[in-house]
């Protein structure tokens, strides 16, 4: 398998603070890897090293086979960077920004203008193309940032917390764009604090904590590694709760948890084949159900199990102190 990004033992220190403590990372060509972790975990530092903005104190990394320290110009020719830091020039319009970037990438004036129009159309920014960027909504700003990082048709795209601070609608828009890019063959490294985002977009997830990789795998693998599956059943009639509870206890050998508000019964299962047995039993007992399914643990639960801290807590810390990672990473 060929890799778009390979990093080995990356170390970065700021004085006494160790921001990266031996990070290994491999991203196969054409895949999306999600780097997940709380603020200060080293996500942004890793992106900055892979984008040649910063030199590591130890370890090595290649992008597209080129060493980020020895041949940074070739690496820069392959990558696109978007996120908290690499943004656009606020004092220029969207169109002017895109044309300038095209010119810097050695396009002719005509080609740079054509490329700008193409991207403005693709990101639905045509109407706002000549407006000051200060009038843009958060979602439009982020779409323009993305467009700016795509002017040179990068093969490897870094998205550093692309949806932080966006409302759910704007977040969905960004996700849609990322999915289309991946469908076109772009390799994506995505950092995020949102478990859902990594779960939605990434082929593989790397979990960072305190400058180290604490877990790596497919979203499903990570979930399985952390814990078993749970079986959830919601009878249509509340009066059937006792009967369904009895059947579940018989089948799994454990008493199901009951949520009286939602009427949902939950029980851990080792054998997924139990589901068909359960369906037959419920059918036999003449019980109708609204919901019945196997559920993997959420990534929030994964994070708690892997780092010893709930992800929600890290997220809250982030919002209280948005400057923290900027200084650190």
């Amino acid at each position, binding site marked *: 398998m060929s890799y778009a990004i390979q990093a080995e033992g990356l170390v970065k220190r700021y004085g006494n603070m160790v921001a990266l403590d031996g990070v290994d990372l491999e991203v196969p060509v054409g895949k999306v890897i999600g780097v997940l972790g709380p603020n200060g975990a080293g996500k942004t530092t890793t992106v900055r090293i892979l984008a040649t903005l910063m030199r590591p104190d130890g370890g090595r990394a290649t992008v597209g086979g080129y060493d980020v320290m020895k041949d940074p110009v070739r690496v*820069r020719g392959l990558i696109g960077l978007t996120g908290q830091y690499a943004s656009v020039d606020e004092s220029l319009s969207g169109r002017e920004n895109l044309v300038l970037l095209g010119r810097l990438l050695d396009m002719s004036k005509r080609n740079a203008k054509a490329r700008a129009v193409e991207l403005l159309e693709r990101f639905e920014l045509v109407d706002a193309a000549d407006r000051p960027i200060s009038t843009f909504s958060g979602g439009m700003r982020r779409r323009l940032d993305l467009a700016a990082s795509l002017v040179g048709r990068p093969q490897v795209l870094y998205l550093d917390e692309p949806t932080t601070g966006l409302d759910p609608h704007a977040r969905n828009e960004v996700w849609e764009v990322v999915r289309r890019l991946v469908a076109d063959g772009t390799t994506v490294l995505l950092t995020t604090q949102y478990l859902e985002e990594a779960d939605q977009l990434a082929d593989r997830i790397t979990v960072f904590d305190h400058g180290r990789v604490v877990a790596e795998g497919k979203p499903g693998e990570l979930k399985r590694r952390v814990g078993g599956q749970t079986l959830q059943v919601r009878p249509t009639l509340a009066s059937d709760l006792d009967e369904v509870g009895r059947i579940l206890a018989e089948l799994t050998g454990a008493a199901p948890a009951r949520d009286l508000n939602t009427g949902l019964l939950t029980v851990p299962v080792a054998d997924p084949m139990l589901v068909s047995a359960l369906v037959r039993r419920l059918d036999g007992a003449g019980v109708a159900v609204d919901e019945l399914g196997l559920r993997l643990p959420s990534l929030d639960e994964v994070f708690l199990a892997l780092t010893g801290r709930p992800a929600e807590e890290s997220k809250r810390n982030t919002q209280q102190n948005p400057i923290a990672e900027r200084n650190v990473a």
Partner: protein
Amino acid sequence: MTTTTIAPAVISGTQPSPLRIGPAKAVRHGLALAGRGIVKIGKSPAQLIDVILTPIVFLLMFVYLFGGAIAGGDVAGYLQTITPGIMVMTVFQASIGIGVSLNADASTGVFDRFRSMPIARSAPLVGAVLADLVRYVVCLAVLLTLATVMGYRVQTNPAAALAAIALLIAFGMSFSWISVYVGMLMKTPGSVQGLMTVLVIPLTFASNVFVPSQTMPGWLRVWSDINPVSLMSDALRGLLNGGEVAGPLFGSLVWMAGVVVVFFPLAMRAYRRNAA
């Protein structure tokens, strides 16, 4: 976007020699970014307020307030002498603004984007220095218009006058690398402003712009005679009013080359560190 193929190095495993950006490309990138700077000035012309007001204040103040005392009543003759000097001084002052604006600009995300692109590292800095052309032209246009209204006349010919202006702009661009360096070194725009102001005063006032250096005590005269602002003022007086050009011109060019040779690499190094 069509199907993407990653660089061949992945497949073959060979490492070609590192790619470098050639000088021609670096110049093109610098010019593209100079265009960005000029568009920005066009969008907020308030940035030009200093280069519009400074020449007016200095010309009026020195000619009408101090002129009588310094020149012993010959205000018209004094105007003729100090106009070239004030041209040098105001362009010199205009050239230090760049460190302040670059200091603010370099901490924004757009500089990170430039750094992550396959362009010459120097391009954003060179672009900013070149974009200041607009500031110098505005500064000189205001100054020469007012001076002409007050009675100043070029004594030589238009070609010499144009040469003087071109030389002076090159002078400003060369010396602006000191400010670029300080701008990359300091943490905040305010500290850049403070340090540059302190540096500029001995260069502009301890010169022959306002008074002949013969009137100064020996030690100050030694400095004033080798001060680049004095040398440049003499060269401009020669080009605009007539008189010796070669000697002071040579001295000015040595200063300009020296400043670029020392401060361009220093600024680049500080810029690289600034990034990490």
